[in-house]
């Protein structure tokens, strides 16, 4: 004990001198990322794999193809969902009923074994049979059964098509269809765990641009560059350190003092101020095909009444929310159900306006002159924005007699509550990976009442329009269908879209090459540090 006391005494003296010494060496080619939450698994096919784990899988594993890059007018770069570029597959031919891929002959896994079509087949079979989210995502591109995947020879892999689906090709470049080193994986498979789920949760059998150097769950993940990577230009960053720092205040302090290189998930206010201060590079990009909304349950009273919903749409303080809860970090939609950068955004700009008088008359017409009691719920996981927004909504609803008590629901329970579809009025957000309006409407407003149709809105007329648009190839006809289901949604107002959020990222000035991706994770392969 005396020893510790003496040391601690000495520490208080030493602290002043040594604040920054350890920081100098090894900074040039190492990237320090600070984030709120880290991956909970290394296997994107695993049960309950969280969003940060997509970032790990995206950089540790290869896929057959990837998307191209386009530069926006403001100079920032983003993925181009119209262009598919080779990654593991060198080239491919798209036939009427099948797509044939030629794999890179010189491609190697991290442990040196060559990559063959057998690995691709094993990996794709795994993706479509393990169930849960990965299988769901593969189905979105009509990739459903193992016998669709054939090994022609070591370098050639064929995917047979079940039906003509324009989403099949793009779906092969999302994070799920990764290529796993099947020989290595099968060594750790067991009779009860044929797909080696247990082992691949903590270990990597991949061939991506980075290897996993160390992973301390809940603390940090360290990536080291895989120098023999052939599926694309060799990345410039040698080592990537991803540190989990729960308090956003600390993350911002780390960036501002230069101890961290890059960070996503800061509250909007911080990004607004960092951008204004100009000491750091702040790149913001509207999250495609996504918006935050006030949802109402159309099945049970009182929000089953259309007039009540219209009254709510007319009382929500759009500008106030956008200014104080979001700090302008996004695109104000004011009811427009199609986000910017998605086809059809310009059709119905800002259909709702804040109008107290109109809202009051609507409430009277709906038979609720005196208003009613209800609860306004939101996900505590996103309280930074939701809480101030909820307080503002609560205050405005009170002006038309709707006395709402705020209900903060813990993250784990939030999905459960959404599934039950009993919450009268709530704040939520949804973003689709594939940037098509009918893809968004299919999940959110289609009669099949998927989990994301939080208002359990079922209207056969809406279903007809969505299903037609999904497989419509004629441009003009397609545009008509999109305008149709958009206008229907605005008139029925099962939910009130408020704004499309930005994906903000702040980095030191010397970090270059950042690209925005639909999966909203960081791709280390294009980054560099001067």
């Amino acid at each position, binding site marked *: 004990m005396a020893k510790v006391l003496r040391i*601690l005494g000495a520490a208080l003296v030493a602290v002043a001198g*040594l*604040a920054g010494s*350890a920081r100098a060496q090894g900074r040039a080619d190492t990237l320090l990322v600070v984030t709120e939450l880290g991956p909970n698994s290394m296997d994107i096919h695993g049960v309950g794999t969280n969003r940060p784990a997509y970032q790990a899988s995206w950089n540790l594993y290869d896929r057959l193809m990837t998307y191209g890059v386009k530069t926006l007018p403001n100079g920032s770069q983003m993925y181009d969902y119209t262009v598919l570029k080779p990654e593991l597959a060198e080239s491919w031919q798209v036939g009427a009923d099948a797509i044939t891929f030629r794999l890179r002959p010189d491609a190697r896994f991290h442990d040196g074994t060559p990559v063959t079509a057998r690995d691709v087949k094993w990996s794709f079979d795994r993706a479509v049979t393990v169930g*849960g989210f990965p299988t769901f995502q593969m189905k979105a591109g009509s990739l459903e059964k193992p016998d669709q995947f054939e090994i022609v020879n070591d370098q050639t892999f064929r995917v047979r098509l079940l039906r003509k689906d324009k989403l099949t090709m793009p779906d092969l470049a999302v994070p799920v269809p990764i290529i796993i080193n099947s020989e290595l994986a099968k060594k750790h498979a067991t009779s009860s765990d044929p797909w080696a789920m247990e082992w691949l949760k903590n270990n990597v059998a991949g061939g991506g641009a980075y290897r996993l150097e160390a992973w301390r769950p809940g603390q940090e993940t360290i990536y080291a560059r895989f120098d023999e990577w052939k599926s694309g230009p060799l990345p410039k960053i040698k080592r990537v350190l991803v*540190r989990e720092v729960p308090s956003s205040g*600390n993350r911002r302090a780390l960036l*501002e003092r230069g101890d961290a290189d890059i960070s996503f998930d800061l509250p909007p206010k911080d990004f607004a101020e960092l951008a204004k201060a100009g000491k750091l590079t702040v790149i913001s990009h509207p999250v495609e095909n996504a918006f935050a909304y006030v949802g109402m349950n159309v099945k049970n009273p009182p929000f089953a009444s259309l007039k009540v919903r219209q009254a709510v749409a007319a009382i929500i303080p759009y500008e106030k929310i956008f200014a104080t809860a979001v700090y302008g970090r996004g695109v104000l939609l004011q009811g427009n159900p199609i986000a910017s950068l998605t086809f059809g955004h310009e059709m119905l700009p800002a259909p709702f306006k804040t109008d107290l008088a109109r809202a009051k008359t609507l409430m009277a017409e709906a038979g609720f002159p005196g208003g009613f009691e209800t609860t306004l719920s939101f996900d505590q996981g996103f309280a930074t924005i939701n809480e101030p927004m909820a307080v503002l909504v609560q205050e405005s609803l009170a002006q038309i007699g709707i006395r709402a008590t705020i209900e903060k629901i813990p993250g*784990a329970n939030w999905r459960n509550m959404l599934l039950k579809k009993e919450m009268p009025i709530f704040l939520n957000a949804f973003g689709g990976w594939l940037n098509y309006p009918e893809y968004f409407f299919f999940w959110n407003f289609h009669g099949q009442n998927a989990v994301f149709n939080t208002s359990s809105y079922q209207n056969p007329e809406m279903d007809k329009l969505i299903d037609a648009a999904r497989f419509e190839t004629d441009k003009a006809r397609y545009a008509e269908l999109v305008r149709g289901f958009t206008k229907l949604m605005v008139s029925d107002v099962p939910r009130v879209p408020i704004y499309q959020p930005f994906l903000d990222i702040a980095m030191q000035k010397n970090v270059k090459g950042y690209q925005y991706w639909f999966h909203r994770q960081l791709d280390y392969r294009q980054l560099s540090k001067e």
Partner: protein
Amino acid sequence: MTFAKLAGRRLALALPGLVGVVVVTFLLNRALPGDPAAFFAGPAATPQAIAEIRIKLGLDRSLPQQFILYVRDLARGDLGKSLTTGQSVRADLLARLPASLELTLCSLALALAVALPLGILAATRPGSWVDHAARVVTTAGVSLPIFFTGLLLVYVFYYLLGWAPAPLGRLDAFTSPPPPVIGFYLVDSALAGDGVAFRASLHQLVLPAVTLGLFAMAPIARMTRAAMLGVLASDFVRTARAAGLAPRTVLFTYALRNALLPVVTLLGMVFSFLLGANVLVEKVFAWPGVGSYALEALIASDYAPVQGFVLTMASLYVLLNLAIDILYGLIDARVRIEG
């Protein structure tokens, strides 16, 4: 009384409490809102997928069955799997426990280094300004809301002054941890003679240890003062004075050593108090300890880690009391001999 008998007695004493803890944690956990199955079925889960996971996690069985399963696993030392970090809870706790213990022990050492002298000073000059100052300072320490002091210290000493290192956990990003011996970075790096790691981990420890230590100062100072006052008024100190022993001998060898007895017993209570308060400090300083681990799991309604954490803390508490008994025995022969 031999060590084994001491340990046996302490364990027997703690057994009922432990059984109570096992039952209570099990019930509390099952009452946690939120259904892990839904949480881990992922965003695009269909009710059917969720049911699948529910069976896999064994949540569909009746409570008593789940409890029996739980106790059987517990007996095998299997604390289940954490769904937030994807690892087995036992591995997580073993990996993270040293971090919490090192922080708690350092803050305790810091608190002792400050509170003991304060207590002694206050006792030797009762009613003087020192007495009042000591009382005010230590009471202020315990009145500070930990999470608030933590944030304030980070803001002032890291953000404004830049003296303290980044609140990045146990080591800054560019120092690799020393080869693990007992998991305490201070000790491991000292054993490995790795000066850089030693200084770096010490650096990181200062602010969190001060934040937590402030919290422990008041009870220790108050108890030391009370015990010292009591002992200084005792007969044998009077005899020592009458025998003309040097004031320093009277104060330290005679008075303090006896006064340490109630302080040592109090340490058990304070240590468990700190473990609880540790959760807040770990959240503010990104300290990869068991406290933040349990907190994240609790908010994600992830049963296994919360249960594992509470059980570990309870058993740690038993071991702690055992250690206190031994320490007490070292100081006071009566315990050792009379038994």
